[in-house]
């Protein structure tokens, strides 16, 4: 995990090329930051301004001239003279493949999901032209934690982006949420893998619910398509901390 580049002292200025466009930045900035400053869109799912970098979803992969490897632009700092490509057939192919794996890994039934129409996975699939899933679906039997009065955790929809874990630890300071297990057996947990209602450290602030990009963390009592997330608090709290 790298610290947010904004916490590092400003340093020398660099020039580089992104998608054929000459751009400049300060050393320490990530490729993703600089691309966004220059209105170059790189798709992301786990990244959220105000939270530390995770680098887990791999959607933001880019090509850098001179290397055959792909780099996660959220976690790669710019260097002088870098020549970066953010859009290519190869990258689009990988990005679609990542989305397809997310759809096939757990159970996403958009038509009956509370987040239908407000979901970042769903809209990213549309944006990147995913029309169907080439991989066979796994249909794992997963649980839904409805023990808590106000919120619900539905593992069927979780994409393991860890935004909830980060906002809970870094912004709320409670660290109720974490991830257990590895690979396909990774799950979001509350405290020591307890039912949410028994997790004493939870302040029921709801920040995790509102940063969750999909229908995994939701407010109870929402029906299909009703779970629109509210994120205004995050840039607000971040700027309060910085100033």
């Amino acid at each position, binding site marked *: 995990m790298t610290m947010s580049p904004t916490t590092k002292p400003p340093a020398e200025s660099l020039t580089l090329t992104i998608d054929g466009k000459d751009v400049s930045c300060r050393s320490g900035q990530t490729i993703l930051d600089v691309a966004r400053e220059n209105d170059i869109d790189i798709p992301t799912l786990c990244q959220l301004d105000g939270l530390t970098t995770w680098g887990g979803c791999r959607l933001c992969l880019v090509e850098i001239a001179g290397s055959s490897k792909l780099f996660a632009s959220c976690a790669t700092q710019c260097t002088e003279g870098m020549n970066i490509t953010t859009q290519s057939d190869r990258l689009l192919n990988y990005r679609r493949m990542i989305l397809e794996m997310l*759809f096939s890994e757990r*159970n*996403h*039934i*958009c*038509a*009956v*999901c509370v987040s*239908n*129409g407000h979901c970042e996975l*769903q*809209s990213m*699939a*549309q*944006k990147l*032209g*995913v*029309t*169907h*899933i080439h991989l*066979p*679906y796994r*249909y794992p*039997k997963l649980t839904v934690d409805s023990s808590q009065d106000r919120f619900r955790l539905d593992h069927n929809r979780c994409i393991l982006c860890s935004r909830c874990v980060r906002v809970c630890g870094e912004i709320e300071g409670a660290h109720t949420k974490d991830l257990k297990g590895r690979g396909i057996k990774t799950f979001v947990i509350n405290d020591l893998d307890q039912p949410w209602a028994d997790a004493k450290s939870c302040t029921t602030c709801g920040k995790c619910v509102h940063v969750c990009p999909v229908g995994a963390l939701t407010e109870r009592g929402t029906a299909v398509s009703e779970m629109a997330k509210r994120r205004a608090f995050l840039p607000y709290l971040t700027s309060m901390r910085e100033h």
Partner: protein
Amino acid sequence: MTQSTTTTRSDPALRGGITPAKPRVATVWLDGCSGCHMSFLDLDERLFILAEKVDIVCSPVVDPKEFPPDVDLCLVEGAVSSHHDLEKAKLIRARSKVVAALGDCAVTGNVPAMRNFWEVEELFRRAYIENAEYPDTPEKRKANLPVLNVPPHERIARPLHEIIKVDLFIPGCPPPADAIFYVLTEFLAGRSPNITQVTRFGK
């Protein structure tokens, strides 16, 4: 959305690319709720435009007993769930030039695939015995699963492309009528539709 929602008979998109004989279009309803066909009917007055341009040779609204040969485009609603669906899907593929998965059930499995967590027998027991509306008597508990009129089911409901080759995907639950019209228009014009411009999963 880039396609126009109001289309007239002089729409150039509908004139181009059509062979002298009218293309033969079929629509089929497998394991779905018929919502996609309702959306198809929501083409409203555009159905008349379509009727001039194509022959609907098979559809729940046409109802021939057998799937006809030499179909140019077949729109398939629903997941592949029963043995009957499976056989039908293979027949459709053998007899159609272009097969389109219409709606989320055909494209992803969607709601019909929510049964996939249980064995077929558990599912049938739940549907036909436990949830049946008659008193909970010893007879009910001993009741047998239906053997007539319920085709044998596959272990899981699957999206169409896991069974046969699918050429076009039209996600949505149901896909909006505009999206269906856009796909048909593009097909008739001999172009390949950019489908995610007009619809998505769960739309």
